[in-house]
């Protein structure tokens, strides 16, 4: 950790997440190691070992138990966080639905990684796209600064809307890359996230509550509708919290990022760390007077169809870049964009899948895509 000045640090995305978590100081953190999430939990374990935080860490024996323990802790009224990647997220898949179904505001940092088989420890979005229907808010980050900021925003958002939140960074590209970032004073963060005071808790002995009942045909449906209703409040609450966060940090986050979108005829839509490369490519092409721009998705769940449709309304051609497949269907982001643009019949939309299993993407390749010189389905 290189300290440049009081507030600027050179950190990896993993360390940035751990640092934000340290300032949030959850009551309970169940943890289980998996590459490339390990730096997050190792760093946090050292904070605990050095007495910098009072968090109860639970070194569970699997990711399934990590999410199970997180559910128990959160239902007991504890501010709860965890972190995972890839097979770990797949292994806790069953419990993701139970966390959201019980409306527990658990925060989970994900260093997104490919799924087996064959085994790959490297980054892509297969894992998090696999959990896109699990009832969790999904916030994507481009770089370590966003990881730090959105971890803090995500905790507050979870507790505000009563839904679990994933804060997602690209495995290795972000989790293991060092960048300079600004961090806030610990006291400011503590005040920003505030005290967590849930209405109900398993530890409220005088007012016993039953979590996780059986719901039969006449009630199950309503529980599921309620989750959708809660999810529908997320965009507005995210905007409010991001605004409050801008006041303490000076960094502004919107529902998505528009980069040179104004006047852009050809637009890239993508998620995560590749946005940095894409911005560089756009800078090059803009200097050549090419009308190109970028829309970077930040919230994937909820997906903001109408807002995105408005943002893309002047684009003549859109290229959607997915870092995951939906084998047998269209890639996940492309599908969502097609739904967003269902009334924009004159817009040409194409799909490219890139970066599976940690395959690098270079600025030149994105320039080629934007110049119409690359027309394949896979940027492999």
């Amino acid at each position, binding site marked *: 950790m290189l300290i440049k000045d009081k507030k600027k640090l050179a950190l990896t995305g993993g360390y940035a997440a751990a640092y934000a978590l340290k300032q949030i100081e959850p*009551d*309970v953190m*169940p943890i289980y190691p998996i590459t490339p999430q390990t730096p997050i939990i190792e760093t946090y374990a050292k904070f605990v070992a050095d007495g910098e935080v*009072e*968090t*109860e860490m*639970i*070194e*569970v*024996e*699997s990711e*399934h*138990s990590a999410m*199970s*323990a*997180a*559910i*128990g*802790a*959160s*239902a*007991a*009224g*504890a501010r*709860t966080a965890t972190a995972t990647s890839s097979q770990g997220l797949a292994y806790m898949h*069953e*419990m993701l639905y*139970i966390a959201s179904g*019980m409306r527990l505001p658990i925060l989970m940092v994900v260093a997104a990684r490919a799924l087996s088989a064959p085994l790959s420890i490297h980054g892509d979005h297969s894992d998090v796209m696999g959990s896109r229907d699990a009832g969790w808010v999904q916030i994507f980050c481009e770089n370590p600064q966003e990881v730090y900021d959105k971890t803090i925003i995500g905790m507050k958002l979870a507790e505000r809307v009563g839904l679990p939140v994933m804060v997602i960074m690209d495995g290795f590209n972000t989790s293991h890359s060092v960048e300079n970032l600004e961090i806030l004073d610990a006291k400011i963060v503590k005040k920003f996230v505030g005290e967590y005071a849930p209405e109900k*808790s*398993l*530890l*409220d*002995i005088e007012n*016993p*509550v*039953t*979590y*996780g*009942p*059986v*719901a*039969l045909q006449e*009630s199950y449906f309503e529980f599921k509708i309620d989750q959708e209703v809660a999810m529908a409040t997320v965009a507005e609450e995210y905007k409010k919290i991001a605004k409050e966060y801008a006041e303490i940090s000076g960094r502004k986050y919107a529902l998505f990022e528009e980069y040179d979108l104004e006047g852009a005829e050809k637009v890239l839509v993508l998620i995560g760390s590749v946005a940095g490369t894409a911005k560089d490519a756009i800078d090059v092409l803009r200097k050549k007077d090419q009308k190109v721009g970028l829309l970077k998705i930040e919230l994937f769940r909820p997906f903001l169809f109408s807002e995105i449709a408005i943002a893309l309304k002047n684009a003549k051609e859109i290229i959607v870049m997915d870092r995951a497949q939906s084998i047998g269907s269209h890639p996940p982001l492309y599908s969502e964009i097609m739904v967003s643009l269902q009334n924009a019949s004159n817009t040409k939309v194409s799909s490219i899948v890139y970066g599976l299993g940690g395959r690098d993407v270079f600025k030149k390749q994105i320039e080629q895509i934007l110049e119409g010189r690359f027309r394949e389905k896979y940027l492999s």
Partner: protein
Amino acid sequence: MNKDLAKNLAPGHSACAGCAFPSIVRTILGEATTPVVISNATGCLEVTSTIYPYTAWNVPYIHSAFENAAATISGVERAYLAMRKKGKIKKKIKFVAFGGDGGTYDIGLQALSGALERGHNFLYVVYDNGGYMNTGNQRSSATPYGAGTETTPVGDESFGKVEMRKNLMGIVAAHNIPYAAQANIANLADLKMKAKKALAVDGPSFLTVFSPCTNNWKFPTSQYVAIAKLATETNFWPLYEIENGKYKLSWEPKTIKPVTEFLKTQGRFKHLFLPKNKLILGKIQKIVNDEFARIASLCGL
């Protein structure tokens, strides 16, 4: 209904008449001297006690999934420690997890092992009815040798399950926890004594309790205690404790009844009494004798 008995698990649940677990749960929780918080694996106990918008639980309760009652209670217990540290809670609370044998011997074994190893302050109770009864009687690793189930059906080429029961007590004991015991609802005073000891442990403790299932063992609803009693009188279900690693037999029958006395009370073993299965009955008696001898030897007898 005795109000005191029902103070934790109220009447109005929908367990079958003649099911053992309501009295098991009430007897165990009746020995608690502090407030309790319950975690429960998916299974008969859970589905019959928490049909929304009703609950039979008068104490805080969480069910999250099938395989993770022990992992879920781990989180609850650590949340409690965090709140105590902050001074938000002062009361002593004991944490108790309930699971059937499917949720414990099989799918929940990893989560149980993890929680025992980590040393959480909780009592884990398995109500052992020897199969997946909530899904209609499929074989588990707790199903006895020779029992007919829906996945080990009796047929021309089959006499039921061909494997012996898993030695879960041995597995639990290998975690070197302070207290583990095998008990039976038919031996009420013994069950109460063991529950009291298990709840008093400051750390992990474990109880495995014999839980006859009227539906799938196929016996009249009035008979669950009588059948449970026979299980212990035939040495099919010996009562013992493992306290700080030391095995101790809780009860030894003066005259051991033949295991057929137990087997003949239940439809799941009916086929074993056909002449062609005579050897199987002999094998079951040998399994019971050997298992009791093994436990007795561990008890220094």
